[in-house]
């Protein structure tokens, strides 16, 4: 009898169990409990939500372990936490603390501007952001067990998440129609591992789940991302920056489950109060675009 921990099946399987659900950013135990009560499938523990990170400027790092620990102790649903891109030690610390998933995230200031973490080497699974198929498959090659669109975090503007989700879907269809000899050149051009492209061609889908993230601000936004093929959604600043977080969180959960029930979504969207204030992409300076912080 051999027991194996940290296998691909166990790490990717954890993300499979999150499908159709909403993962919510929280900064303390109280918010974590609200998220759990609203039906979140997991919470992301962090010190500041993306819109506050954006406003504060400076270097954004892994949260103070006190915050992560407080959230770990507050809820029975899985707890995710963010490490800086390439910051092997932040990731090891989170693993040691018992975080259930690590987000190697462009929302934080990258610690390494060239290399991502070798995630195959960890027992805890990782989720990473992607804007296109090449980026998605490079992350899987490094050992990511779950993907999400990068979108543009903390803006309340869905346009980038939509772009990234569509880009991945379109490129999967292109790969499916390619001849084998074209595939190697495609691998060279996109930096995607050839073996993973072969697998995509055969199965017509990514080998891990792909959630939507970055700019989801309303129940309709969440439903839109599901319509476009997302397996679930991450909501960052949207919930606790709204007027009525409890109601807002519940509405996002229900809209994600029943994303094609438009009468229900109409009902859910009523009297939610003000959503978080949004940012137009063209108002962002190049250095403020979090999605461009890694390749």
């Amino acid at each position: 009898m051999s027991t194996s921990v940290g296998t691909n099946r166990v790490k990717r399987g954890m993300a499979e169990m999150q499908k159709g659900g909403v993962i919510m950013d929280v900064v303390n135990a109280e918010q974590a409990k609200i998220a759990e009560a609203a039906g979140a499938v997991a919470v992301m523990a962090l010190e500041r939500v993306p819109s506050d990170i954006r406003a504060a400027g400076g270097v954004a790092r892994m949260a103070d372990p006190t915050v992560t620990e407080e959230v770990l102790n507050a809820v029975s649903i899985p707890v995710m936490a963010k490490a800086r891109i390439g910051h092997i030690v932040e990731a090891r610390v989170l693993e040691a603390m018992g975080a259930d998933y690590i987000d190697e995230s462009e929302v934080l200031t990258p610690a390494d501007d060239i290399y991502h973490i070798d995630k195959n080497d960890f027992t805890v699974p990782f989720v990473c952001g992607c804007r296109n198929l090449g980026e998605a498959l490079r992350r899987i090659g490094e050992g990511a067990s779950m993907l999400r669109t990068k979108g543009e975090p903390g803006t309340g503007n869905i346009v980038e998440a939509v772009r990234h989700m569509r880009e991945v879907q379109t490129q999967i269809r292109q790969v499916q129609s390619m001849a084998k000899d074209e595939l190697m050149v495609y691998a060279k051009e996109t930096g995607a591992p050839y073996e993973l492209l072969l697998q995509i061609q055969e199965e017509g889908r990514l080998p891990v789940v792909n959630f939507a993230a970055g700019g989801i601000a309303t129940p309709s936004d969440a439903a839109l991302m599901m319509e476009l093929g997302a397996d679930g959604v991450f909501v960052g600043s949207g919930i606790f920056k709204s007027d009525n977080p409890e109601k807002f969180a519940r509405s996002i959960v229900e809209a994600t489950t029943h994303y094609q029930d438009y009468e229900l979504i109409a009902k859910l969207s009523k009297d939610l109060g003000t959503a978080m204030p949004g940012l137009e992409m063209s108002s962002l300076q190049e250095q403020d675009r979090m999605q461009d912080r890694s390749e």
Partner: protein
Amino acid sequence: MTTIGVLGLQGAIREHVRSIEACGKEAVIVKKPEQLEEVDGLILPGGESTTMRRLIDRYNFFEPLQQFGKAGKPIFGTCAGLILLASDIEGQNDAHLGLMDMTVARNAFGRQKESFEVPVEIKGVAEDFEAVFIRAPYILEVKADTEVLGVYDGKIVAAQQGHLLATAFHPELTDDHRLVQHFVEMVDQANGNKLASV
């Protein structure tokens, strides 16, 4: 034709649909309570049990699901589904559907980094079932006529009580369809057309 539903509120729904179809039966994703009338058996998939319970309550699934089980229609719960079926949950005053006589402990094997896979013997089904445990519960105690089907490391990880089947692990994450096949046979038996499954 036998039709088997998968409760489609959240979790590993697609994988169970694939398993049911691999066993030659028709699969339906059940998103509304009235759809329960169309199915002969139901799978409660893996996912987050607290999330599923919230959605069960909000869409008035609770009573229809209980009636489905009490009417003798087969239900198979995996991981979160096992928690939903249990009559008692350790450390909680209230259970969920409470259909199956057993006490379960949630997240009993630890957090995600302690999650694992291991071959387990399932009585009457398989000698070496590839069992994938993810933040899994286990059964502390079976009661009444609930029968233990599988044990790992001294903990009960699979059980059956008549038309109700539960596993702490996720058969849907493997290509091993023997447990779903076993469930399909339970459904056929409940339908009184046992011969159809041969």
